[in-house]
């Protein structure tokens, strides 16, 4: 097809907006009355999540079944099935949404497709059993707007995820897509655009929170024959998947932002560094890049202007350290992925020695909408120093696992209890780990902290890329610190001494403590090592790697001391510290424990209380799981 110029883009947008009107309407609808062909709805769209998580739960099959059923009933002209990106409410996936009444069906199975089509789409009757049940009121909620999970969210970076078809550029265009780029090319100077980004207060969402506008300004100021825009899609924090979701659900927002950045800094080449373990994101990006080229949004003379820009995808092998921008650049150059000292910053000497601007996916996804809605709008959201919203991946012992986006300044309590639905199984909240392996564990006393870059840093954690893992009373904080350190030790590039050897030694000490072999000197040594590593490691990853240890030492010191002095793990997580005994009053002498004990540690006669030989016991817990009389006690 012929590539679009500015005028064509407006025409395409108008046309595409008509298709999207069914969905746009649904967001405005006030009541929850059903739509359905039988009640006179003329046009219905079924949105089905096509993110990695829901796909793993057979959402592809759901789509096929829905389509087949629609076909079989001869209503294909009125009813469309659209595969979207992630809705965020992964706990309840796969999700199917019916438009325009915005009915939110949860945990849908492929075999439910027929019922949805026949009952709802045709009959206009909601399928009650697939509706979300509010755990507080125990009533069904059909419109996602009214769910606690969504009510406090504000979706800016995720604005199109779960709403548009990511494989259709026109749906993106309908949502004012490529308008910011067109605007910039049609009359703004790069400085003006950079100025808007600066004024908006947007900061890097990858972790460190460096002001994006300033970063662009630096890259613009260096003169060179080549410059590069790099999108850092090497999302590596355990449990974090916001970047993947954006690329899967709204790839064009990233592409548009990269082109805008290219225009601002004077680059004509963009590179997306993405880990190869994100095949779906890669697939969608490839489609999006191809479509953007066909529509003239990428390539030579973008939209007929003087500006040319194209994007290439570069694959990473998934090393955590390659999320660090200098390591990322070395990896793209085909070198060993390890950081080098800054300065020189990539803005001066980056990819192949040329000025390079590296931004994270979520940062980029914010850019187009800032430009269309204005810096003031964005700056009005959030806290004094952290503007806009942040996407968090909620995980761990929380009821509503998923991807959420909230304004900066939202408290941890709102996130965990209102949006997240509280701690699973009514257990007691113990800690929340933010910022992945570089972050720290925050406690009860931090729950009312309005979160932004500064407040999290001051509390001994960090924003990071937005992982948020909730822990309850069953979690041992020493083991948690050990878990994160195991990750860091495994992912250290090995370049600098503190990270290469220091983290290894810290892990050894933590292992000793969890095995009951720790000493009080070990605790001092941990503190010394953690402080030294923080003070001396070469890159940001090394410098922040002791955070999980430092924050747990600060907030849960008594638990460490308990492990060391009393050889006790109050959460019963450290196996080596457990003692299994049989309560003779409860034991009926049935022999089930004895029969199943793999180490023959249990002795006793039939119908008489049994006993466990502590020297032979391997603390596997088999006896406890087999006892029907709750006679096995663990200390």
């Amino acid at each position, binding site marked *: 097809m012929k590539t679009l110029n500015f005028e064509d883009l407006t025409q395409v947008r108008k046309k595409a907006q008509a298709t999207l009107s069914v969905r746009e309407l649904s967001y405005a609808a006030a009541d929850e009355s059903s739509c359905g062909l039988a009640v006179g709805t003329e046009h219905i769209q079924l949105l089905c999540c096509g993110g990695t998580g829901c796909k793993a739960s057979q959402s592809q099959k759901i789509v096929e079944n829905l389509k087949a059923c629609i076909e079989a009933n001869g209503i294909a002209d009125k009813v469309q099935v659209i595969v979207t990106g992630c809705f965020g409410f992964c706990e309840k996936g796969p999700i199917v949404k019916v438009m325009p009444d915005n009915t939110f069906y949860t945990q849908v199975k492929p075999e439910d497709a027929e019922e949805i089509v026949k009952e709802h789409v045709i009959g206009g009757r909601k399928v009650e059993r697939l509706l979300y049940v509010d755990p507080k009121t125990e009533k069904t909620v059909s419109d996602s707007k009214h769910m606690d999970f969504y009510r406090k969210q504000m979706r800016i970076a995720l604005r199109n995820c779960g709403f548009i078809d990511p494989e259709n550029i026109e749906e993106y265009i309908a949502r004012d897509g490529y308008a910011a780029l067109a605007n910039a090319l049609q009359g703004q100077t790069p400085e003006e655009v950079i100025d808007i980004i600066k004024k908006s207060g947007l900061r890097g969402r990858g972790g460190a929170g460096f002001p994006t506008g300033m970063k662009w300004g630096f890259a613009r100021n260096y003169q060179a024959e080549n410059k590069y825009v790099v999108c850092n899609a090497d999302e590596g924090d355990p449990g974090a998947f916001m970047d993947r979701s954006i690329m899967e659900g709204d790839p064009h927002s990233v592409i548009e932002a990269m082109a805008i950045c290219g225009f601002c800094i004077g680059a004509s080449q963009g590179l997306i560094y993405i880990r190869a373990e994100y095949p779906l994101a890669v697939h969608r990006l490839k489609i999006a890049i191809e479509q953007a080229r066909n529509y003239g949004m990428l390539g030579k003379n973008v939209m007929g202007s003087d500006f040319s820009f194209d994007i290439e995808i570069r694959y990473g092998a998934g*090393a955590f350290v390659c999320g660090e921008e200098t390591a990322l650049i070395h990896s793209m150059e085909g070198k*060993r992925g*390890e950081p*080098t*000292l800054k*300065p020189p910053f990539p803005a001066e000497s980056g990819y192949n020695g040329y000025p390079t601007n590296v931004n994270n996916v979520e940062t980029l996804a914010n850019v187009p909408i800032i430009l269309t809605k204005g810096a003031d709008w964005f700056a009005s959201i959030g806290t004094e120093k952290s503007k806009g919203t942040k996407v968090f991946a909620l995980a761990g012992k929380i009821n509503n696992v998923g991807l959420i986006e909230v304004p900066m300044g939202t408290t941890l309590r709102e996130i965990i209890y209102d949006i997240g639905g509280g701690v699973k199984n009514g257990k007691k909240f113990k800690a929340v780990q933010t910022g992945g392996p570089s972050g720290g564990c925050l406690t009860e006393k931090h729950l009312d902290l309005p979160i932004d870059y500064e407040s999290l840093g001051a509390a001994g954690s960090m924003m990071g890329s937005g992982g948020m893992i909730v822990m309850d009373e069953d979690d041992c904080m020493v083991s948690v610190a050990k878990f994160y350190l195991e990750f860091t*030790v*495994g*992912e*250290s*590039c*090995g*370049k*600098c*001494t*503190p990270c*290469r*050897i*220091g983290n*290894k*030694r810290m892990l*050894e000490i933590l292992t000793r403590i969890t095995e009951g072999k720790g000493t009080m000197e070990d605790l001092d*040594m941990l503190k*010394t*090592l953690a402080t*030294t590593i*923080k*003070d*001396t*490691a*070469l890159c940001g990853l090394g*410098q922040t790697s002791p955070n999980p240890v430092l924050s747990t030492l600060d907030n849960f010191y008594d638990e460490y001391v308990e492990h060391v002095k009393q050889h006790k793990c109050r959460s019963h997580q450290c196996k080596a510290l457990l003692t299994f005994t049989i309560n003779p009053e409860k034991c009926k002498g049935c022999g089930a424990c004895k029969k199943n004990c793999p180490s023959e540690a249990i002795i006793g006669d039939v119908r008489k209380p049994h006993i466990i030989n502590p020297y032979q016991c391997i603390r596997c817990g088999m006896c406890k799981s087999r006892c029907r009389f709750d006679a096995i006690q663990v200390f």
Partner: protein
Amino acid sequence: MEQNMIQLTIDNHVVEVPKGTTILEAGKQIGIEIPTLCHIDLKGTCVKNKPASCRLCVVEVEGRRNLAPACATDCMPDMVVHTNSARVIRARKTIAELILSDHPNDCLTCPKCSDCELQRLVMRFNIRKMPFNGGEQSERKRELTPAITRNMEKCIYCRRCESVCNNVQSVGVLGAVRRGFDTTIAPTFDKMFVDTNCTYCGQCVAVCPVGALTERDYTDQLMDDLTNPDKVVIAQPAPAVRFALGEEFGMEPGTSVTGKLASSLRSLGFDYVFDTDFGADLTIMEEGAEILHRLKKFLAGDKDVKIPIMTSCCPAWVNFYEHEYPDLLGHPSSAKSPAQMFGAITKTYCAEKMGIPREKIVVVSIMPCLAKKYECARPEFKVDGNPDVDYSISTRELARLIKRANIRFTQLPDSDFDSPLGESTGAAAIFGITGGVMEAALRTVYEVYTGQTLPHIEFEQVRGFEGIREATIDLNGFPLKVCVAHTLSNARKIMDKLRAGELDYHVVEIMACPGGCIGGAGQPYHHGNFEILNARRNALYAEDEGKKLRKSHENPDIQKLYKEFLGEPMSEKAHHLLHTHYSDKSIK
């Protein structure tokens, strides 16, 4: 203050430095020696490693969140730096303790004991305990090649060897393998050196701060041979050895110890103390003749003659082109290296003269070089399995032997080398430096070609430490274009040009080590101090100047050898004994 100058405060001293100066360099200016380990900067050559990875040089910069590596942090205006605050000292000590926790700490039996940079730092930091020891030790390989010993358990991961192998030599054998605690510096896939295109230049050994990379030690074997009454052990020390050996005994760098060297070898029990310098003069005779031979053909319009002709006395360079430029093997001169020529003559001409059978003779070369050890083992330098040079020891190994033999080196009297292979000229002495072989060859080629006496014996144009130097010499109207290069990365530039048909020289000299043999991997460790190399160079040129004979073709022993035994340069006999051939050794 000048525009490009910055003022800052280090440990309460105000210092003014040019922009781009690191804190480490600025400190040095005012006598503050910040400890370093991974860092090396052999100024004046391209040997440089600045990864800022050991973190032992960290300093406190006011207003900065964390500590800054002094080796790689540029000075900024009004910076306030503390290099010895409690925070810095604690951090440095902890890092050193961490390094020790993954190090064998078998210092007493380590070949680098007392010459180890880590050991010095441990002493300097007053470390008396190793609190982090007892944990896991990284598993790393050991290897014994003919030239280099690798014991990577001792590696402290400074990556100097990697920098040198890649950036200075462009050989690219060494790199980081695996990650995190398991990282090791090794050839790709953790292969062995012997399975790679390693040239055994040994520059990795020359910069290794610890005992991870050392020379293959032949001192015990030499001791055995020296005490064996059935063996006639003959020493031949290389030109560059005598300008560095003294350093091992506390003498000033640049002290020429030629006379003491001969005496010490005699005291060690060598039966004959000859001189590789004789071999160097012989090399000039053969190589010079070959240059003239090829030039004549070239001038006569012979299209097949390989021009430029390249020197071939550096064994690492020979390995390099056999590995990487098998298509250009016709260019290097077929002349053997001085040491091998010497060996071949010793075990034929000399053996005959002295009436000793070849098998009883042990020729030991004392070299500034590790690749020579590999060269000795080449099959083409053996006659029925008996090598022309039995083995080669480095300058450092000789020093160890002298110390072990209770010889007080500094008080030894001077003595001369034995006859008939002990006489040499100034031309041979300068073989030890980059440009030296070229200069020696030019002295002879000029006189033989033009039939006139050189008006000015020094060829200043080919001297210096510039990586690639070129000059045009007027040979009676014929402009002879010559080029001199040192380090293999510069050699690669030249060879790539040659391959592309863009090289416009007649004669090219290549030395693998920075500075030539004075910077050889078998020399006393320079520990990054370029002044040591400079001092050796000055001593070497002084030796040349002080010689009565300064042109190889004027060496009376050489003239005698041709008269009595070889006939003339490039005769059939000379060809058989003094020339070699090269083969394709590329890694497939």
